[in-house]
C-alpha cells in the first residue's frame, strides 16, 4: 500500500512538472474572434442577481434593446449584433470569471459590461493583455480608466472625479456661492471627488470647507457643526445614501436654511430619501444631482422608457421596473454601434478602438455628450440638478460640468 502511494505521488509530480513546461509552450491564435460575415458577437456582463442587481440588470436590458433596435434596422454593415450575457454578481472574482468565459470560451469580438467600479477594475490587466476592447456599461470605473489604456472606455454615467466638481459648478452659478461646505467620504472615492472639486473651486474662485467622513458613520453632528461654523453659502453632500440621509436630517434639526446639494451617488430613490430624512420638511431647500438629460421619464428621454416598455412588457409591468439606472445602458451601446459603424465593413478590434477614441456625440440620454480622446477614457463629466421638495421634482436650468482633466 505504501509503495502504491509513493509510486502514485512520484508519477503525479513528474506529470505535473511536465505539464508546467507544456503550458508555456501553448500559444493562442491571433485571429479576430467573434466576427462572421453576418454577425458580431458582443460579450455583456452585469450584476443580474443578488443584492446589487439594481445596479446593472436593467442597464444591461437597455443596452440589449438598443442592439435589438440596430439589428431590426439591418445591423452594422450587414452584421447582426449577437449578445452573450453573463452575471458578474458585482464581485471581482465572478466578474473576472465572466470576462474570461466571454473572451476565451464564447470568443466575443468585444466586451460591454461592468456596473460596479470595484469589481470591473479587477478585469483591467486581463483585458489589456488580451487586447479586447472593453466598453463599460454604467460603472464609473475610474480605477480602470486612469491611467488610460488603449482598451478600456467607461464612465458613461459620470467619472467619480467629476461628481463633486459639477456640484461646485452648480452652486457657484445657480446661487453665486463663494464659500461652500463640502462633505465627502474619507476613502479613495472621496479623494477622487475632492480632487475634481478643488480644480473647479479654484477656477470659480470658491472656498471649500471640507469634512471627510466614513461611509458607515452613525453620528454626523460633529462634522456638520464644523461645516456650519464656516458660514457656507451652501452645503454640498458628496456621499452615499446613509451619511447623506443623516446629514440632511441633522441640517433640518439644526435649522440650517442654506441650499443643500446632494450628489448623484447619494440616493437612487427619492421617496426612500424623503422617508429617511423624516419627511418633506427637511427638503425645503434641497437639490439633487443627476446625470440624465432630463427628469426620469421626462420628455427628452421618454423614448428610452417607451422603448423599454415595448421591449420588456412583462418587466415594465412590475412595480420596481425599469430600475433607476436603466437609461445608462443606452450611451454605452450607442458608442459601440458608432465605433463599429465607423470601423467599416471589415472591422478589427484595433480599428474599433481607434474609432472609440474619436467619439464625440450627444446620446440624448445623458446630461452631457460622450467625449473620448487620445488621453480621455471617461465619457461623461456633465450633470443636471433637480429641485426636490419631497413630492415634486423641478429641473433646474442648465448643464453643469467639471473641468477636471487627467494629468498623468
Amino acid at each position, binding site marked *: 500500500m505504501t509503495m*502504491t502511494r509513493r509510486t*502514485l505521488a512520484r508519477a*503525479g*509530480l513528474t*506529470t*505535473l*512538472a511536465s*505539464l*508546467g513546461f*507544456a*503550458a*508555456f509552450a*501553448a500559444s493562442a491564435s491571433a485571429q479576430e474572434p467573434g466576427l462572421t460575415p453576418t454577425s458580431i458577437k458582443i460579450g455583456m456582463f452585469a450584476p*443580474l*442577481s*443578488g443584492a446589487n442587481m439594481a445596479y446593472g440588470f436593467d442597464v444591461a436590458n437597455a443596452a440589449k434593446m438598443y442592439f435589438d433596435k440596430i439589428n431590426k434596422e439591418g445591423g452594422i454593415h450587414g452584421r447582426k449584433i449577437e449578445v452573450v450575457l*453573463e*452575471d458578474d*454578481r458585482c*464581485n*471581482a*472574482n*465572478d466578474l*473576472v*470569471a*465572466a470576462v*474570461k*468565459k466571454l*473572451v*476565451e*470560451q464564447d470568443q466575443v469580438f468585444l466586451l460591454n459590461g461592468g456596473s460596479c467600479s*470595484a*469589481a470591473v*477594475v*479587477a478585469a*483591467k*490587466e*486581463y483585458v489589456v*493583455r488580451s487586447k479586447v476592447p472593453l466598453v463599460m456599461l454604467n460603472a464609473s470605473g475610474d*480605477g480602470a480608466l486612469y491611467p488610460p489604456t488603449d482598451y478600456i472606455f467607461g464612465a458613461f454615467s459620470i467619472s467619480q472625479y467629476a461628481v463633486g466638481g459639477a456640484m461646485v459648478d452648480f452652486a457657484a452659478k445657480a446661487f453665486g456661492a463663494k464659500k461652500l461646505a463640502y462633505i465627502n467620504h*474619507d*476613502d*479613495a*472615492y472621496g*479623494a477622487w471627488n475632492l480632487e475634481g472639486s478643488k480644480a473647479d473651486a479654484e477656477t470659480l474662485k470658491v472656498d471649500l470647507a471640507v469634512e471627510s467622513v466614513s461611509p458607515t458613520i452613525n453620528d454626523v453632528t460633529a462634522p456638520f457643526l464644523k461645516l456650519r461654523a464656516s458660514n457656507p453659502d451652501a452645503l454640498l453632500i458628496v456621499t452615499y445614501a446613509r451619511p447623506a440621509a443623516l446629514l440632511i436630517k441633522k441640517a433640518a434639526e439644526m435649522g440650517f436654511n442654506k441650499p443643500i446639494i446632494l450628489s448623484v451617488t447619494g440616493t437612487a430613490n427619492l421617496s426612500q430619501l424623503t422617508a429617511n430624512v423624516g419627511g418633506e420638511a427637511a427638503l425645503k431647500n434641497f437639490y439633487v444631482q443627476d446625470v440624465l438629460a432630463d427628469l426620469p421619464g421626462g420628455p427628452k428621454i421618454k423614448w428610452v422608457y417607451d422603448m423599454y416598455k415595448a421591449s420588456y412588457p412583462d418587466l415594465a409591468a412590475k412595480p420596481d421596473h425599469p430600475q433607476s439606472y436603466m437609461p445608462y445602458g443606452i450611451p454605452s451601446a450607442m458608442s459601440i454601434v458608432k465605433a463599429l459603424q465607423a470601423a467599416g465593413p471589415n472591422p478589427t478590434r484595433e480599428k474599433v478602438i481607434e474609432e472609440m477614441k474619436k467619439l464625440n456625440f450627444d446620446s440624448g440620454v445623458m446630461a452631457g455628450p460622450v467625449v473620448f480622446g487620445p488621453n480621455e477614457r471617461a465619457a461623461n463629466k456633465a450633470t443636471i440638478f433637480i429641485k426636490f421638495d419631497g413630492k415634486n421634482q423641478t429641473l433646474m436650468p442648465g448643464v453643469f460640468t467639471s473641468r477636471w482633466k487627467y494629468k498623468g
Partner: protein
Amino acid sequence: MRIIALLGALALLVALPFFTTGYVVYLANLLLTFTVLCLGMHIVIGEAGQFSLAHAAFYGIGIYVAGISGTHFGTPFPVSMLLGGVAAALVGLVIGTVALRMRDIYLALATFAFGEAMQWVFLNWNAVTGGPNGLRIAPAQLFGLELVTDKHAYPFVVISAFIMLGLTILISRARIGRSFRALRESEVAAQAMGIPVQRAKLAAFGLSAFFAGVAGGMFTLFSTYIHPDSLGFSTTILVLTMVVVGGLGSIGGAVGGAIVFGLISELLRQAPSWQEIAYGTILVLFMMYAPKGLFAFLSDRMGRLRHG
C-alpha cells in the same frame, strides 16, 4: 476504489489545461485556492473545534504581503507565498493570544470583529493596500519566468495545493492533530490528559491563519489585482459553508466542499434569475439530508449499497 478515484482526479488535473480554455483553468486555480482556505478553516474549526470568523482577513494579509513583496521587492513567488503565510500566521498568533481567552460565541464574535477591522484597514490604508482603488500586483515570477496567464500559473497552484493538502494530513496524523481533536471533544478531558489547551488552541489558530495566508499567496499566482471588497465577511462565510457542506472535521470534506460548492456556485451564475433560490435550496437540502457533510453522506450510501 479510492485509489482509482484519486488516480482519476489526478489525471483530470494534469490534463485540464490541454483540453480546456483559460476560463476553466482560472476556475480551477480559484477552486484550488479556496481548497487551501478550506483546509485552514478545517484545522481551526473541524480539528480543534474553535470558532474563527476571520479567515478572509488572514487570506487578505497573505494576498497583500505576497503581492507587495513580489511587486516591490521582486521576490520569487515561493518566497512571496511563504512570506504571506508567515505574516498571516504571526498576526493570527497575536490575535489568537487575545481572542482565545474567550469561548464559543464570544470567540466567534471576537474573530468576526477582527475580520471586519482588517477589512477596514485594507480599505483605508491607502499607501499600502491602495484603499478602495485596489492594489495592482505584478505577475508572479521565478528566476525571470513570469506567470502571465492562468495556464502558466496552474501547475504551481496545483503543486501548492497538494503541498498544503499533504501538510494537513501530516498535522492531522501527528501528535498535534490528536491534541486538536481531544480539545474539540472536551477541553476539560484534554487538560486532564496533559494537553496544554491554550497552546494547542493558539497553534490551531496560527496554523489556520498560515494556510489562509498561503492561499492568499496562491491567489497572487494567477491574479494581478485585489480589492478589499473581496476580503469581507461574505468570503469567510463562503469558506465556512464549503467546509460544513463538505463535512466538518474531515479533510476530504474540506477539499470536496470547496470543489463541489465552488462548482455549484459557478454553474448557478449561468441561471441568474433563480440562482439565489437554487443556492438556498441546495444548502437547506444538505443540512436536512446530509448534516454530516457531503462525503459522509456519500460514503454512508455506498456502505449501505455494499452491505445490501
